[in-house]
């Protein structure tokens, strides 16, 4: 009898873990617009951005090749034009996938290297990932972010001098998380095994080399490094203070927990047949990278599986211990919401998916608050 009782207690304690859903209220404001004025930033093209302070974000104007500043002050946005970046020469910055700022130095990440730019220096420093033997054998090492639909790489810590990157040896298919400290110039592969088998299963590319992006996503929040995937909801959190990793199993009520595995692309397939398979994989559920709102909760935007009527977007909310507390259908609240967002002064702004004027960036302010128990 005691054994049955013990089993019952274990069963109850297992089933309630991580399953508490609280009632949170998400309120979408009216559509507002950021005037882009003379900036070359177009609302029709996603821009790369990097947070500078709580109310300033650097935006790369790819039209003029300048680093502009978007300032959020007293509830309104102002875009301030910045200096142009040279493309060639000793201080030339080639095309890149993301960038960060620390003091007077800018760090530009390409899929294969980091360029360190300081206008007060004579020339840039460039670090090539291919020179680093991280995966046991030589090969092409590429770096990317995972979700492909929000153009930020929030894994940079100016204070400690750390950049965390998801990297992959494209020959062996092995992935890992790199830590680069730009103060000590130290690069290392973190001692954490990603789910490489699952990443490989979700890798699909045409024979010409064009493929889907399925790198892990990294998000840094103080001592916590969150590693998540676009193709599944499960994620890991590394605590830098205690040097410990923890895996978080995910659950969802309104969308799949993971993408279906991609169909194999046979050598006889044409590029267009192959592209149809790449698109099918992308049209399946897709988990965005994490963001943080103040000291209270984390969030991420999830693109539901595409269906005839389109795509539903969801907002997943997590408390400060990474326990999921709610999932909200954003599309039901405001069908015009897109997948790109910004957090400034602890407020979430989601850009509209329809941007009819390229000199105006339409957005919605999203307020999140806990529902009153008596509601």
């Amino acid at each position, binding site marked *: 009898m005691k054994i049955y009782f013990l089993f019952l207690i274990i069963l109850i304690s297992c089933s309630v873990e991580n399953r508490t859903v609280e009632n949170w209220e998400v309120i979408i404001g009216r559509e507002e617009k950021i005037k882009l004025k003379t900036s070359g930033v177009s609302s029709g093209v*996603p821009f790369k951005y990097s947070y500078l302070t709580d109310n300033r974000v650097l935006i790369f104007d790819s039209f*003029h090749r300048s680093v502009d500043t978007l300032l959020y002050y007293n509830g309104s946005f102002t875009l301030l034009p910045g200096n142009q970046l040279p493309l060639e020469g000793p201080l030339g910055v080639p095309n*890149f996938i993301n960038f960060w700022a620390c003091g007077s130095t800018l760090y530009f990440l390409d899929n*294969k290297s980091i360029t360190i730019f300081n206008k007060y220096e004579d020339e840039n420093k460039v670090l090539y990932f291919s020179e680093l033997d991280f995966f046991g054998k030589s090969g092409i090492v590429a770096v990317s972010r995972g979700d492909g639909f929000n153009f930020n790489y929030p894994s940079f810590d100016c204070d400690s001098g750390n950049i965390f990157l998801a990297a992959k040896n494209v020959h062996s298919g092995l992935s890992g998380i790199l830590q680069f400290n730009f103060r000590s110039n130290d690069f290392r592969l973190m001692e954490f095994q990603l789910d490489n088998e699952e990443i490989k299963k979700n890798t699909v590319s045409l024979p010409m080399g064009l493929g889907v992006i399925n790198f892990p996503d990294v998000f840094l929040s103080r001592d916590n490094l969150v590693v998540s995937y676009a193709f599944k909801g499960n994620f890991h959190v590394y605590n830098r203070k205690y040097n410990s990793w923890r895996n978080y199993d995910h659950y969802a009520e309104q969308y799949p927990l993971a993408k279906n595995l991609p169909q194999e692309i046979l050598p006889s397939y044409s590029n267009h047949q192959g592209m149809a398979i790449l698109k099918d994989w992308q049209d399946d559920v897709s988990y965005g990278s994490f963001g943080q709102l103040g000291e209270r909760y984390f969030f991420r935007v999830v693109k539901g599986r595409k269906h005839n009527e389109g795509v539903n977007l969801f907002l997943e909310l997590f408390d400060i211990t990474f326990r999921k507390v709610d999932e909200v259908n954003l599309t039901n609240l405001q069908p015009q919401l897109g997948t790109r967002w910004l957090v400034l002064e602890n407020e979430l702004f989601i850009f509209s998916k329809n941007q009819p004027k390229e000199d105006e960036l339409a957005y919605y302010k999203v307020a999140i608050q806990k529902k009153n128990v008596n509601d």
Partner: protein
Amino acid sequence: MRYTKKNKFRFLIMAFGLFMVSSTAFPCGGTYYACGEDDVLDMGMDALLNCCEGSTMSFYDVCSEQAYLLVVPEDGENSSCAP
């Protein structure tokens, strides 16, 4: 030099192609914008011709909101690495 601000979107999509025919230093890295599957494939084929093995670049299809990664599998015949 600042460009006049007309059709920035079209400019960005064309930028990759213009680089391919007008510059000896091909932009074999970074993120490029496309509109539609044919555009993505055309950009990819241009990169295969003009970039060295291991060149890696991202393509973002603005019209379908889908992203792709291209890793050039061998030295392109017009690339600086061509034998």
